[in-house]
């Protein structure tokens, strides 16, 4: 069973031999197919959420550059996403800087902060590193909450005047309007998604990325064999922050501004959960993780909100809704099972194992 990390899921599922094209094509397929699939009436039933899916996929994939490819666990990844979100929101609301200027600045700022923090802490032991990222994330949250100079809006966050002029929105539909052109916001995000994820993919398949994998596998050996482990970690941390900020910048438009939850530890925790659920060992793992997480949450949560109208049957209400209100119990169970199977394999790993067995059986029969 190969657990090597960069190859795409298509190859793993033994579906098609596409060579170097499999990841680009896979990303394109995700971007094109996600919305119709998600908005199918029997799925989540509404297309707008697909945009959020894509944005979170970028963010979780950026985290997986750390966890899956470098073996660094950060408890504060939301901070780097939030720096992107807040940079744009502050630039728009307080300084009237255009979005297309603010966004690259936000990404650079996030990368810069990550570089400095990384220089300080990237070489620390696993748990110490994780706890230090937590501490820095808490500090960022504190600063935003403190509302220095009225810039960050404290606990209310920023909502007013945070949208670029070329975003139009009406009863839930968002469009990008540029010089007479009007395209759905989803396609704008999809384009950024494909380009951003391709860059990330190139990063992990490059010689640089391969060295990161070696660091993940055996840090001491890598160092003994001539790899400057600390510098690779610092730069992995920096790149991960830049991609997280890319997601954060998109989130600013998607969520109409910035709120403290974009910097919170809970968000960092959710990012970890999504990465683990999907499978940290796979490039497409985080994407699957986002899908499963958002889907499970909405799907299970629906059971209790929907059964509630039938208040006239109180007994039955307890029977059904009463249990499903606590859907996170089942999420916890899923987690325990996933970890017991393998903490780095996730849903994709499970899927692969099952499909592998199936195909082996089929092949066995045909022989």
């Amino acid at each position: 069973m190969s657990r090597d990390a960069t190859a795409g899921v298509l190859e793993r599922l033994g579906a098609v031999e596409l060579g170097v094209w499999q990841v680009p094509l896979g990303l394109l397929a995700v971007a094109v197919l996600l919305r119709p699939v998600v908005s199918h009436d029997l799925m989540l039933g509404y297309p707008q959420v697909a945009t959020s899916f894509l944005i979170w996929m970028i963010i979780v994939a950026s985290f997986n550059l750390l966890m899956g490819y470098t073996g660094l666990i950060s408890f504060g990844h939301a901070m780097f996403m939030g720096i992107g979100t807040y940079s744009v929101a502050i630039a728009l609301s307080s300084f009237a800087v255009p979005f297309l200027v603010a966004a690259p600045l936000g990404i650079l700022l996030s990368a810069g902060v990550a570089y400095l923090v990384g220089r300080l802490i990237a070489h620390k032991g696993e748990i110490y590193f994780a706890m230090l990222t937590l501490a820095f994330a808490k500090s960022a949250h504190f600063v935003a909450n403190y509302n220095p100079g009225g810039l960050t809006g404290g606990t209310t966050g920023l909502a007013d005047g945070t949208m670029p002029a070329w975003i139009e929105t009406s009863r839930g539909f968002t469009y990008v309007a540029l010089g007479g052109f009007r395209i759905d916001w989803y396609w704008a995000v999809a384009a950024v998604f494909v380009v951003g994820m391709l860059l990330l993919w190139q990063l992990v398949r490059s010689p640089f990325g391969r060295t990161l994998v070696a660091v993940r596998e055996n840090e001491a050996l890598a160092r003994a064999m001539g790899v400057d482990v600390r510098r690779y970690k610092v730069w992995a941390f920096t790149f991960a922050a830049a991609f997280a900020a890319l997601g954060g910048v998109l989130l600013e438009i998607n969520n109409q501004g910035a709120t403290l939850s974009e910097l919170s530890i809970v968000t960092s925790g959710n990012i970890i959960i999504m990465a683990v659920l999907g499978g940290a060992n796979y490039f497409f793992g985080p994407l699957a993780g986002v899908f499963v997480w958002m889907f499970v949450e909405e799907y299970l949560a629906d059971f209790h909100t929907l059964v509630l109208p039938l208040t006239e049957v109180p007994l039955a209400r307890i029977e059904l809704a009463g249990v499903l209100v606590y859907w996170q119990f089942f999420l916890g169970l899923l987690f325990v099972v996933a970890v017991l199977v393998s903490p780095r394999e996730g849903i994709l790993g499970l899927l692969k194992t099952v499909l592998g067995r199936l195909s082996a059986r089929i092949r066995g029969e045909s022989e």
Partner: protein
Amino acid sequence: MSTSSSRTLGLDRLSAGGAAVWGAIALLLLVALAVEPGLFVDQFVGGLVYGMTLVLIALGLSIILGLLGIVNFAHGALFMLGAYFTYQLMALWGLPFWVALVVAPLLVGLVGVLMERLVLQWLYDEPPLAGLLAAFGIALMIQEATRAIWGDTPLSVATPAVLAQSADLAVTTVARIRLFSVVVAALVVLGVYLLIERTDFGLSVRAGVQDREMAGFLGIDMPRRFVLMFFLGAVIAGIGGVLQGTAVGMSPTMGQQYIIITFVVVVVGGIGSLFGSVVAGLLIGEAVFLTPLVLRSLADVTGVGALAVPGIGGLVPYLVMILVLLVRPRGLYGQEGFME
């Protein structure tokens, strides 16, 4: 030679820097003491009491992390269960506090053993992340189960009459229940110390941690000892829960609230060092209580109002952690090579 001299120099610089830091801290504390002497004493004692509460919660976590290598994220959930079991025993079944103080931790210990046998024992040889994630899943399950059984609304139990008032310590007054918590915490710390350092059982566990295979050869039944250590860690969390539940009350999120700060304590103290956890707990307790006072006094003295940052107390533990880990990468008393 060049190596040795540069190393000594480095150490010199470090200790000089350390002296400067300690000097500055002492000076700041003196300023605060001079500006508000009465309040300073109150906050100092308050910080001590709060610190001991943290120690009590951190101790079990530290045992499980230091001896078994499991990052038990569910420790907060065990702590919470201690509080809810107290509610069940006292408020619903009408048993006295003293019964709850004994029975609730034992019940929590059983839950801990269940956790260890069903899930965590399979993860001893995995990287720390695996244990952390599994424990996180367990924490979610316990929390949701708690919501289902006892509801979302925060609950409390009546403080027993003897502990309900405040105790006059001449320089300050402290709630008796908090003082009682400190005494219990101190006893637990002492008990754990004696168990680990002074008994054959503790010796064999420590040996097993150093070299599990070797201990196996020597015929020490490690799995059973690990279960016992886990039980012990869970019981201590339960004791913390009983005391916190009685003093403050309980809600399904209390575990989450405490688990992170408790990790901070363990990490600041140095993973693998129980003594470090105790020192770190007290250090952070004092820092949380004294930092706002110091800043306020400083603002008074200098006339720079901006120094008195509101709500800084919540951030203090993390700042302490950043400072400590930057100066001492393994925390205050961490062992070399442990969890690195």
